[in-house]
């Protein structure tokens, strides 16, 4: 197994929101698995950190939770994106893209600049 990267600060919430957007209502375990899968198993998610992150999003009103039954008939708490959550996702995604674009440009090999 290749060395796994830890989840960067602040990105977990964005991943959770994105996961909920693509997958629809999902329980905590499902979200954690899905994040790992999407990262191509390159990201080591501490499952225990998912729950405080979900709680924070819920307190901020970006997700809602209710008890339901899982695919294998187990009682589980399902999280669902709210309208405010969808907007927040858009905003965060845009910010993130901008940040990565800037950073990418920064790290790209510099051409035609000498020291003078």
């Amino acid at each position, binding site marked *: 197994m290749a060395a796994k990267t830890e989840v960067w600060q602040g990105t977990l919430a964005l991943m959770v929101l994105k996961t909920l957007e693509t997958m629809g209502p999902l*329980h*905590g*375990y*499902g979200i954690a*698995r899905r994040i790992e899968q999407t990262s191509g198993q390159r990201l080591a998610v*501490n*499952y*225990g*950190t998912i*729950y*405080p992150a979900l*709680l*924070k999003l*819920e*307190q*901020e*009103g970006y997700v809602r939770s209710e008890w339901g039954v*899982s695919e*294998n008939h*187990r*009682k*589980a*708490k399902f999280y669902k994106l709210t309208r405010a959550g969808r907007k927040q996702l858009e905003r965060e995604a845009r910010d993130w893209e901008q940040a990565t674009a800037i950073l990418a440009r920064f790290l790209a090999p510099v051409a035609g600049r000498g020291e003078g």
Partner: protein
Amino acid sequence: MRRLRAWLVRLTGLFTKRRRERELAEELESHLQMHIEDNLRAGMSPAEARRQALIKLGGLEQAKENYRDRRGLPMIETLIQDVRYGLRQLRRNPGFTAVAVLTLALGIGTNATIFTFVSALLLKPPSAIEKPSRLFAIWNQLPHGEPRYVQQNYPDYVYYREHNTVFAGLLAFSSDPQNVSWSTSGQSQLIEGQLVSGNFFSVLGVRPLLGRWFLPEEDQTSGRDPVVVLSHSFWQQRLGSDPAVVGKLLTLNGHGFRVVGVTPGNFKGIETILEPDLWAPIMMQHEIHPGDDLLSRRTSYWIYAVGRLKPGVASSQALAELNVLARQLAQAHPEGNKGWGAAVTPLTGVYDPDFRRFIGPLMMLLMTLVGLILLIACANAANLLLAQASNRSREMAIRAAIGASRGRLIRQVLTEAILLSFAAGCVGVLLASWTAPLLMNLKPPTLSFIAIEAPVDWRVLGFTFLVSLLTGVIFGLGPALRSSKVNVASRLRDESTTTAKSRLRNVLVVGEVALCMLLLIGAGLCLRSLQNAESIDPGFEISHRLAVSLDLRPLGYSESRGRSLYSQMLDRINTLPGVRSASLASYLPLGFTNLGVGIVIDGHEPRQGQPVPTAGLAAVGPRYFQTMGIPLLQGREFNSQDGETAPSVIVINQEMARRYWPGRNPIGQRISFAGGNNPSFEIVGVVKTGKYRGLREPAQPFMYRPLSQFYSTRATLVVQSAGDPKALLAPVQRAIHEIDSSVPVTDAETLEQYMSVPLFTAHLTGILLGALGLLALSLATAGLYAVVAYSVAQRTHEIGVRMALGAERREVMRLVVGQGFRLTLVGVGIGIVVALALTRFLSSILYGVKPTDPLTFAAVSLILTAAALAASYLPARRATKVDPMTALRCE
């Protein structure tokens, strides 16, 4: 916004803990089960599947703890924990808790008591009034000198009312409630009536309990609408809460007045301390206050004007417009209003500016003194807490060893301190609600018409809350910082590290003694000054004298009838057995009435731009000076020869003679009153200068004219008795009523009782200062005792060793007493230095005593040192009783 929302949700998380805890357990359990199932499917053994799932979760309890941190508000949760723990600690040491709470309660209680009066006299708006913060009193501001506010005359009030655009309504009422004679079933009683504008109640926004208020048209034509509104207490006490009172007639000053309404019980009038019995429209002035036509006169400033600001208008805008109107008035009436401006003041407490100027500094002084007492109490409580903390230093060390941060330890001690001070605050409020009415009872019976309601209201509660919080922080911070500094290793090995702590304790005691010194010096100076004020010679004899006040105005007597009543009265009373002499005066000195006039004396014309000289003036009957015991220095008294048609004569006081005829004989000289071509008066006598307006006034020029030549509708009958003056009270009043049973006697008392009013503030301040000084002294002594006793307890071992080595009792005694004595001396020294720097701020209120009065300083130092010696003597005696063997074994 989002953050606020999250915060609120977390706050509710504090209260739904149990349900949420269950849900969290269920959620994580289902998570684990799902994960285990997946792992099983992946081919793991059941044990391994579970182990892997738990590893991935990062441990079940850890996951829960992370979650909990996010769920509630950890800060508040630890606070609740601290409070719970603190309460348990305080319960465990009931003795310590009781003493600390009691000490602080005394400090907080005195603050709350004094603040109750600050709130009632300076802050509280009149009750039952709609939005009192929008109401402002309007004054005339005189041009030069210190800012002096004067009421309005009626025409000016009307001008302001008609021409302003800033007030939704501008009401008026007559200065103080005045005597009105109410005739009921053949008897007449005096009650207090106030004249008000027709819009009075509607501008205030009060709703009638019964009936209605005045109509606008009832305040338009002089004398047309005899209607009254009754106060709730008059209706209840004098009319037995008659439910059908509206529409009934009351006979007031001989005129029938129809009752139109009754005020609600919580409305006490607009001046918080003077509640009238009834209100009548200003247009009924002639019937209610017979005499001059005040409605048209521009020189009588008897109207208080109060306006309600329109919505959105600031008081500064209102003031700007009023000043424009004041200038217009000054242009139209230069003879009276020239140079006058306008001023507005909020309607809080007793808003009369003269009263505020007097009461404001007094309250400041008292608040400073009780503030000092609270600081002393804080020092005591801090010492107790320190002693307590050193008993608990092992516990602190253990808590630090198992990971409590220093901040957490500080917070724990502070929480306990604040718990103590809140408990003390509650006891303090109880104390205040008990002592404030007690203080009110010190008021002399003559002042019964002044009703100060000083309830413990929300202002007092809020103030006490803040003071308690502050107290907790002040007295808790030192001990908290000190006791949180634990050296874990040495403390766990049970080594004592007391030097630093005892240094802080010593600093506290020294501070306490210094504060007490400061307070006692302040109180001592004030008491000395009061003593001086009380021994001031008022200029007349007080013992064996009687004063009976009469008011003929409500009777509508003609002048000639009044004159004959006066002379009949004097004739009859002079022949009563036990009466040495009787006379009359238009008013007595040092009362509520004063009269001053401008004077014109040949050779003393004022220079251009200088004010006209003035002198006090009273009208007195024959033999007044003899009856009052005022020494006649030159010339003669008035006698029956000085009749209405006889030459106009006048008697002056020595101060006036000194000012205008220095080194010459004033007898035979002439004086006239300023303003037009007034007749002149011949000086026939000079009497000793007395006190007229206040006991502390410098010598004032004063003049007397015969009552027969200067008629007054109000008069005070003075009687000199041979024996006990009280025994004459009833016969004198009977004699008056034998002449005319309807003459209203407003007051009948001995001059000793009469003098309790001018001496009232002095007495009250004296009692307050004495009580506060005593309290401070006991607190400081108790604090010193506690520290010395504690250090004796700590040094039992050392003392035992000393005694085992042959130290004598005397030496041990000197050791212990010496410690307390040294601390006291340092404190006294600091106190003296600080007092020398600060007492000059008292000089404006001190009378006949220097702010650095050596006698006061010496006496206070001695008292404090003696108290300190006594406080250290008790523990010292205990120290000498230490049995060396027990002491050596006690480690």
